[in-house]
């Protein structure tokens, strides 16, 4: 530590936000037993840093300093805020815990465990899916409430209320702050992965509004995916989800034209795909193949790997994609998977066989169903039917970019 005033202190504090502060909050939540108390203590510590660091210099481990200070602030708060005996007992117990814990052990495995605890708490099944997404972005991703509100197109006050209510439910209903045991882990992990993928998809195809991609959410989901992979390196579905997101996101910038219009996979400029993401994704898919415990995310990632492997649309290995969809349909027998499989069937066995499969699916309210039908009908020369299907697709989507694309396709034929 230097004795001279430190002009970089403010910048150092700014850098602590958001990744390091979410770490500090995760640690303090375990100690305090309450997310709200933990957040307040970390805020106190950040305020102290703002006052202290410009004078004393930035400490060698800023996070360690924040955690240690936040612990002290928490004890102060518990003593100050209530004269009740019980609070004093808590504070005394915390002081003892703080001494036993030491401050140095927070740098390693304990942090990872606490972040994982936080993730499982945010994604608890007793919280509504929307709430899980918001809490995860706030408490694990470190996004501000304002940013989350913008991403989900709701007023900031609404989002703030949603997050506050959720934190109160966690406290009042005692949603546990722990990683589920081995028996419950697969089911609960699937829930966590679903939340991360929901964040990604919300970013990839905005469900409403006129902008097709909200890249910040995709980037955030990939960051969460990497974090999960660091925390649970031996779960192949975690690697599968990360690979899937990387391979889909690698094409993000070619998915819309300069005018903001939708560009289909076959028409995208493959030289503009993000090679680094594709290489990362392919490496993860290869790793999954070695582990050989396939699951839905790994299979979807493998399908994306085949697409991104092809130097041109014409060179796509469709039989391989169809084989992967066959496997996916076994582990995830949903109409959406069947619809995607039918697209591969059309490439391998022709549009007539694919149309028969598509027509049997109960997906009348889903715009992609109608868009796929329109394409198959057009390829079969049934122009009038194709136009009707296209109209149905336009009626079923709220995304302006997709609507414009469908209108254009309809006019072109």
């Amino acid at each position: 530590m230097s004795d001279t005033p430190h002009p970089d202190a403010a910048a150092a504090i700014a850098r602590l936000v958001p990744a390091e502060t979410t770490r500090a909050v995760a640690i303090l939540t375990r100690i305090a037993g309450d997310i709200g108390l933990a957040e307040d203590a970390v805020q106190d510590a950040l305020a102290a840093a703002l006052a202290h660091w410009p004078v004393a210099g930035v400490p060698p481990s800023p996070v360690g300093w924040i955690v240690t200070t936040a612990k002290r602030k928490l004890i102060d708060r518990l003593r100050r805020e209530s004269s009740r005996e019980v609070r004093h007992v808590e504070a005394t117990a915390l002081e003892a815990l703080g001494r036993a814990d030491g401050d140095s052990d927070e740098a390693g495995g304990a942090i990872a465990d606490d972040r994982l605890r936080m993730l499982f708490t945010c994604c608890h099944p007793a919280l509504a899916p929307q709430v899980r997404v918001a809490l995860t972005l706030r408490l694990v991703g470190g996004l501000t409430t304002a940013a989350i509100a913008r991403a989900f197109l709701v007023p900031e006050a609404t989002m703030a209320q949603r997050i506050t209510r959720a934190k109160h439910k966690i406290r009042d209903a005692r949603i546990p702050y722990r990683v589920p045991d081995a028996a419950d882990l697969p089911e609960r992990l699937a829930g966590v992965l679903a939340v991360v993928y929901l964040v990604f998809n919300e970013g990839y195809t905005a469900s409403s509004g006129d902008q097709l991609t909200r890249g910040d959410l995709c980037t955030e989901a990939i960051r969460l995916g990497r974090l999960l992979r660091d925390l649970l390196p031996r779960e192949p579905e975690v690697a599968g989800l990360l690979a899937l997101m990387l391979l889909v996101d690698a094409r993000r910038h070619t998915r819309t034209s300069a005018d903001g219009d939708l560009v289909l996979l076959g028409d995208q400029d493959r030289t503009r795909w993000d090679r680094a993401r594709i290489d990362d994704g392919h490496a993860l898919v290869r790793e999954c193949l070695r582990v050989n415990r396939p699951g839905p995310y790994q299979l979807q990632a493998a399908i994306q790997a085949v697409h991104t492997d092809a130097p041109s649309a014409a060179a796509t290995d469709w039989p391989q994609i169809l084989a992967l969809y066959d496997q996916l349909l076994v582990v995830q027998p949903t109409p959406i998977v069947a619809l995607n499989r039918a697209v591969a069937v059309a490439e391998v066995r022709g549009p007539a066989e694919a149309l028969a499969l598509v027509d049997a699916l109960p997906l009348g309210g889903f715009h992609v169903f109608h868009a796929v039908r329109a394409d198959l009908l057009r390829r079969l020369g049934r122009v009038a039917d194709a136009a009707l299907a296209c109209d149905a697709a336009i009626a079923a989507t709220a995304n302006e970019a997709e609507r414009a694309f469908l209108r254009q396709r309809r006019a072109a034929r």
Partner: protein
Amino acid sequence: MTQYLLSIYQPDGPPPPTVNLERIMADVGALTTEMQTAGAWVFAGGLHDASSATVVKAGGGDVLVTDGPYVEGKEHLGGFTVIRAADLDAALEWARKLSRATTLPIEVRPFRH
């Protein structure tokens, strides 16, 4: 330990003939014993039909008495169990068992203290 109210929601009127009441009573009885053995059971009760309810509401110096349940609906509170559990996961596990035994939806709510 937190106490939780497990509310059993029941459709109004007599149960359909497909419901095996004897089996349900036996399952609920076995679960009550299991809860008591585990030290989780605090209190429980079954209620008469919602049509037997009376609502009393004080306001403006008067007290209004009305016939029937407070909330209109096709389903009403049919019974409840109060349990104590370490956290929500433990409470949900008991609720899962109670739902299976009663074949009815269970609402889980923590007590304030």
